[in-house]
């Protein structure tokens, strides 16, 4: 009976695909998984369609080995995925959570590197209800970083989360929490900034033990190891196997794609601000409807006083997301000229039918912000490009 049912379902799907003409081709994702000792020979990358699948390790699509040790190939239908890598080094389990999860996979192939680290198991001890722990990078306590705790409903695990604390000089932290499940992420930025995307060499720290369970009168003590963004040189041990060999010199390092985005909290929820430099406004479609969930990015002109396309390929840490009314607010760390863009996807070239728009208040798509001032009521119109 069950087999007959399956055949019926299969045939129905086949008919639907014939009728709609939709035969979505899978996108090839390739890359490599490193530990500090070099490529992880038995590495496997898993792609999960949602947070629930990620944490339950269900509904995943797993990679096959690539052409060289540590490399992988993964075919995915276009969509959003949580990508993680696993493998072993000297019988120790290694794990990596990609910093920009969930990742939008389009029909473009991608090359994705992963840095994997080990995670000791969670220790549960009687005490105050909450999570404590330590954060390290290559065996050294991460003094001066931050650690954030998120509810599972967050799904992106970016920004300030439920709480954000600074790590003490021993890399330790503690959160007083209600019983439940939580995701913990630590970060350390090279520059003195608590928000914005991680830059090169900034550290990202996501333990394989996430989500962390918290029970009444129990402390969940965790240990988190970090990896650097776009700094293979710094990550590999000195005696590690460097797959680049002599070709290393002059090769490119990672690009904008491997960007972690921390969204700036909506200042509307924080009350009025004075003396803060920023840009706020709305994103609308051509009919005037507010556009929800779009990224708005402000690119510092940095002396480029004429708009040029390549500026939009550079990195910016000034990013916000529109709310249900299409409103956005970007906090800046200084005055100056900024180019403004609203779009659905960050870190990739614009794609067909993506909602996209430049600021059209002038022919230069730029806005001048005075230090300590707010440029308000800025409107950006978007529509679906490249029809």
């Amino acid at each position, binding site marked *: 009976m069950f087999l007959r049912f399956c055949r019926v379902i299969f045939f129905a799907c086949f008919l639907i695909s014939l009728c709609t003409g939709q035969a979505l081709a899978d996108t090839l994702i390739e890359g490599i998984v490193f530990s500090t000792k070099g490529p992880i020979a038995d590495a496997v990358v898993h792609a999960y369609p949602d947070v629930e699948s990620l944490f339950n390790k269900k509904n995943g699509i797993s990679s096959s080995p690539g052409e060289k040790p540590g490399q992988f190939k993964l075919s995915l239908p276009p969509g959003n995925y949580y990508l993680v890598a696993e493998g072993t080094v000297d019988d120790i389990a290694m794990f990596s959570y990609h910093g920009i999860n969930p990742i939008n996979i389009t029909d473009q192939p991608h090359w994705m590197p992963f840095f994997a680290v080990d995670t000791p198991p969670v220790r549960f001890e009687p005490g105050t209800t909450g999570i404590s722990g330590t954060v390290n990078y290559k065996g050294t306590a991460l003094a001066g970083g931050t650690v954030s705790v998120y509810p599972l409903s967050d799904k992106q695990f970016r920004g300030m989360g439920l709480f954000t604390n600074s790590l003490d000089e021993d890399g330790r932290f503690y959160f007083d929490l209600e019983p439940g499940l939580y995701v913990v992420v630590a970060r350390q930025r090279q520059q003195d900034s608590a928000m914005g995307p991680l830059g090169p060499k900034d550290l990202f720290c996501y333990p394989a033990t996430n989500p962390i369970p918290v029970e009444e009168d129990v402390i969940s003590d965790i240990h988190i190891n970090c990896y650097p963004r776009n700094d293979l040189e710094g990550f590999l041990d000195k005696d590690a196997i460097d797959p680049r060999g002599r070709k290393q010199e002059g090769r*490119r390092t990672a690009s904008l794609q491997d960007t972690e985005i921390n969204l700036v909290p909506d200042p509307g929820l924080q009350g009025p601000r004075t003396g803060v430099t920023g840009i706020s406004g709305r994103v609308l479609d051509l009919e005037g409807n507010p556009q929800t969930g779009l990224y708005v990015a402000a690119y510092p002109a940095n002396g480029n*006083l004429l708009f040029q396309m390549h500026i939009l390929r550079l990195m910016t840490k000034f990013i916000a997301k529109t709310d249900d009314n299409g409103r956005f607010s970007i906090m800046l760390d200084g005055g100056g000229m900024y180019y403004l863009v609203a779009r659905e996807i960050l870190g990739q070239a614009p794609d067909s039918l993506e909602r996209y728009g430049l600021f059209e208040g002038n022919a230069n798509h730029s806005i001048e912000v005075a230090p300590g001032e707010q440029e308000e009521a800025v409107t950006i119109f978007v*529509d679906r490009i490249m029809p």
Partner: protein
Amino acid sequence: MLIVLVFSSCGAKQFNPEQVYADQVIKSDTVWSGRITVRGVVVVGRSATLTIKPGTTVLFEKIDSNDDGIGDSEIRVLGRLLAKGTQADPILFQSAAADPHRKDWSYILFFTSGQVSVVEHCVIKHGFSGLQAHFSTVNIANVTFQDNHEGLRFGRAKLSIKNNRFVANDIGIRFTRMEGPVSIFFNEIRKNRIGVFLVPSGQNTQDFFEPDRSGKPWNTGRLLIKYNNISDNSWYNVSLGEKQFWDLDMPENWWGTSDLTKIRQTLFDKRRDAALGSVILEPVAPHAVAEAGPQPEN
């Protein structure tokens, strides 16, 4: 900031105002005719259509505010451009200088436009690029690109490039992505320095080192270059840029000869630099493609 200047020279048969467009965004549907001068950057806003009538002359003033040797004036299309000339009354886009040169102005740039634009029966001269198309959909037909640094440049875009003439440019067609859908059919690409130039964009690669790829590119079949006459380009008929290691299919084009050895001498590909991909010529068209180049409108 629309400035309307009125010229009423003696003996003029027709009152013909000259319109000068300085830096501005066109935000509602607009029609150009007669003589238009572009002084700076004119943006066709996302909600607007700019229609240019047959016989219109669009002159770009040379302004080089950042002193990079390239004129700043340009038309940037976020909305839609309908520039439909006729064979008898083409639309002219060219330098406003009395002694015009290549790079006097930037380009007509289609950037993230949300509508399908059309450029037909036009003559485009003296630009850095005549047209550039990125993340946009454009139909380009019966256009003469002449005396530009580049006739046409494109990256990711949906393009139909048909029955155009690329002549006397430094580069006829330059593109940075082997993806599409892009069709380049029935064009005449002659007497440029380089006829067709493919360079890698690097925008899709996030890596610590480049993978050792070989063989067919992933998007075979979305970029089609067929039925063109490509010959007499003084440096190369086709050149692959540094690190461009994909093979480029260019079947059924006419190269001024059917002698494969002679044709290959006009290519810069794997045969000259082992790190590059190959231009795949076969099958070669047996004779010049009669329908190539601008054609009368139906």
